[in-house]
């Protein structure tokens, strides 16, 4: 690992073809309420955005 946690070798993003693993993850929202990610696309498609930072 390089400085400030950077990778020492170039990686490649590898998004999955299915979101089953992501869907099983539970995360808290800004109020601490837990949400299961899979619930967001149970009835209609969902757009998931992973922010690089809260900046």
């Amino acid at each position, binding site marked *: 690992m*390089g*400085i*400030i*946690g*950077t*990778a*020492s*070798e*170039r*990686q*490649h*993003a*590898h*998004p*999955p*073809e*299915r*979101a*089953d*693993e*992501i*869907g099983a*993850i539970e*995360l*808290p*929202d*800004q*109020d*601490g309420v837990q*949400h299961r*990610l*899979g619930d*967001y*696309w*149970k*009835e*209609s*498609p*969902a*757009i*998931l*955005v*992973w*922010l*690089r*930072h*809260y*900046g």
Partner: protein
Amino acid sequence: MQLHRERQALEETGAGLVLIGQATPRHAAHFRRRQDIDLPVLADEKRESYKAAGAKVATLSELLGPKVAAKGLVSSLRSRQPQGRTIGHPAQLGGTMIVRPDGSVPWSHMSEDASDNASPAEILAAIREA
């Protein structure tokens, strides 16, 4: 958050929008207030979902190289909002993914460097086809 500014167009597609950041709920609450976002923002302090989504950790040049810095400057000037203090893993990149109700992923754009983000127009086009 350019995508959030396209909220109306997104809502017309019927798709849900989920924002995930890599810090605590308290940081997520601060981010929502600062960016004037009324959507829930989820907090993934352990970056579990980032790993499952195949998001990468950048090298130093992918984070701070000349191309990345130039695009970041242009983006800040356009939005008139400078980047705030980095919270979480500084080299963790993000991305965008569309998931259908059957769990399939018809489209994704995970960042290859810190300046590599899908445009709202690209995301809207992709969700309209999903």
